[in-house]
């Protein structure tokens, strides 16, 4: 047992750190501070810098541009990105579409799509959920009917994250209405510019536009864009559900947020002393840091198991549950720190150089963050479902 990284790993850590320092766009560095929504160009600028370096998809197979880093190096890499607070890499192409394509796609599909994903040419979105179907994917009703070399798709998808930017969508459609719910489903790649597709924003309660509803009306998609066999899409999708969970705990990101929280709480006065020293606040903050420290080591234990070639199994649901609980509690404490300044809704106001009285742009982002973060225990398999998984798969209940 040993906590230390190897000298090679430490050297790698320094390399990553310097690369970020030297190459992260100054424009993004400034924007990040304000914690606002990013646009497509901003997301892609960092993606392309990493692609050029060969670092945008460390977990991919070597032949498609991946690295042969050990799990420890992958951990160090994603850790450094999070600690530096870089703009996140949007994973729908990199982590979700790509593994299905390289695993189940044909050569033409691999040759065409994978480089475009790698280099940030295509922005992907995920067409799984449908109105009314929620976490229960087997109930999907969007239908694709064969018409010569095309499928004609009719139906709708929802909760589609950042679909407003998407060039491509991978989606599940029903190709056999008579089969059992989980059979008769195919996996299609759909060009978002195809006529008949419309994207309707869903505004979330924080006022943000992250998710969308997608309507498909007689959308003609080439059969060549089907992954694998007809009616077997569910199998491919399922494999994907269990795929890449690295970073699911969000430890580094939460550490960075706690540092930000401490800064805000030091700058906030309560009864003539920094809020950070208020016993109640300090107690809750310390409890949260302790929880995060425990999660960090649970995460490291999972990583060590991976390193040793073991499969981490359903225990990684712990990382999802505790990770999101901690993220939510950080935003709660932020909101507490903001006090009455949690109330102003400053969306659409340009505050740069115009912080009226006590309200900084940073304070203005706190309540929307708190509201937005409620999603984390809902999306990606709700925490209730994660607990069901542990109960069944780990405890055998």
């Amino acid at each position: 047992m040993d906590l230390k990284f190897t000298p090679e790993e430490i050297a790698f850590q320094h390399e990553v750190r310097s690369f970020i320092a030297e190459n992260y766009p100054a424009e993004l560095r400034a924007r990040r501070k304000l914690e606002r929504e990013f646009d497509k160009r901003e997301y892609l600028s960092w993606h392309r810098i990493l692609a050029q370096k060969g670092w945008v998809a460390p977990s991919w197979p070597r032949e498609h541009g991946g690295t042969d880093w050990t799990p420890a190096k992958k951990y160090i890499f994603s850790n450094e990105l999070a600690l530096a607070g870089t703009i996140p890499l949007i994973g729908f192409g990199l982590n979700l579409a790509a593994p299905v394509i390289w695993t189940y796609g044909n050569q033409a599909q691999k040759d065409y799509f994978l480089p475009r994903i790698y280099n940030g040419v295509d922005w992907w979105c995920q067409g799984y959920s449908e109105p009314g179907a929620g976490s229960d994917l087997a109930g999907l009703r969007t239908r694709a009917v064969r018409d010569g070399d095309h499928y004609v798709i009719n139906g709708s998808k929802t909760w589609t994250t950042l679909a407003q930017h998407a060039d491509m969508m991978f989606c599940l459609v029903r190709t056999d209405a008579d089969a059992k719910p989980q059979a008769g489903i195919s996996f299609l790649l759909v060009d978002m510019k195809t006529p008949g597709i419309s994207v309707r924003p869903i505004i979330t309660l924080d006022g943000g536009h992250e998710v969308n509803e997608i309507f498909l009306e007689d959308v003609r998609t080439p059969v060549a864009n089907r992954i694998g066999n007809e009616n077997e899409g569910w199998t491919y999708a399922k494999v994907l559900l269990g795929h890449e969970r690295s970073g699911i705990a969000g430890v580094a990101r939460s550490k960075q947020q706690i540092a930000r929280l401490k800064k805000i709480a030091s700058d906030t006065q309560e009864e003539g002393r920094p809020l950070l020293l208020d016993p109640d606040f300090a107690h809750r903050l310390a409890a949260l840091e302790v929880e995060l420290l425990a999660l960090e080591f649970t995460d490291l234990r999972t990583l060590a198991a991976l390193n040793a070639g073991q499969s981490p199994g359903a225990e990684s649901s712990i990382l999802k549950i505790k990770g999101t609980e901690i993220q939510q509690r950080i935003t709660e404490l932020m909101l507490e720190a903001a006090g009455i300044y949690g109330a102003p809704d400053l969306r659409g106001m340009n505050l740069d150089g115009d912080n009226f009285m006590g309200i900084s742009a940073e304070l203005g982002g706190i309540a929307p963050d708190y509201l937005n973060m409620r999603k984390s225990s809902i999306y990606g398999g709700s925490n209730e479902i994660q607990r069901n998984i542990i109960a069944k798969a780990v405890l055998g209940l």
Partner: protein
Amino acid sequence: MDFSFTEEQVLLRNSVQRYIQDKYSFEARKTILASEAGWSRDNWRAFAELGLLAAPFAEEYGGFGGGALEAMIIMEEFGKGLVVEPYLQTVVLCGGLINLAGSAAQKSEYLPKIASGELIMALAHAEPQGRFNLADILTRAEKGGDGFVLNGAKAVVTAAPWAGKLIIPARTSGAQRDRRGVTLFIVDKNAPGISCRDYPTIDGQRASEISFENVKAGGNAVLGGVGAGLAILEEAVDRAIAAQCAEAVGCMRVLTDATVEYCKTRKQFGQPIGKFQVLQHRMVDMFMECEQSLSMTYMVNLKLDEGEAERIRAASAAKAQIGKAGRFVGQQAIQLHGGMGMTDELNVGHYFKRLTMIDAQFGNVDYHLKRFAAAGQTDR
């Protein structure tokens, strides 16, 4: 001991309920929020006609002679409707302050105008550095001319964009956080030297940051005696808390009912999600928090007149309960609604936002637990 309402109170509740049902649908409210003003003068006039604005004032000032219980009844229904019009600010807080401490002349001047709907008022109590401490005041009022000259700043003054008059606590003596030396002033919002920066709030209300630069206030602008403002302010805020608890109970009740309803109809894995025991118990906990909060709302409104220490303990206990319960009920309502709960289109998120903001207004759970404990210690 009696927890029933009088016939008049039942009628009052019914009439508010009917109005909300007919005129304050979720869609109607959305239109109000999207309007430039962000509130509806028509609704305000209707409130006046229904007698809501006059309910808690004495008959000699155009009121109906009610009190805290009437405000409680109205605010609970307003909570159910997520009413944004500034009842709490104008009637409960500012009307309450004038009622508590105003001279006969001030009462005669302001209360009838509030009761008739003619005058909107806002209380500018918070300061940028002050957090929740009502005594944390840096705004200064110096003697000058035949009255006072005010300089300073106030933060997140709810309803200020709509107000004709402001009530402003300022220091006529003492240092930051001293309990003595606070004086309340009634000042015209358009008085020279007042600048406002208006904005919406997360929960769909409107507020302002306000600065005062050599703002003149005549001697008759003083409310309740020079240097005697803090105790009055505290009492008025405690009364506002009592009313706001009722609003929060209204919000929580809607959320709990909506969640139960949603879970009965929403199906997943072949059955209504309300059949899952974990969700059932979660809803039971929501229900219990509603009931406990309603109990506390009755408690505080019944104890407002039982002496200062008892009032402080009652108000702070109730506010702490409502803050805790509001957070839990709001968060769980979103969680159990799943993706739908996250959307702006469903009413659930809006109740959640209102409850979230109520927690910080007039002091959050921590603040009030401390105040509750401190009041108990001096008590012993």
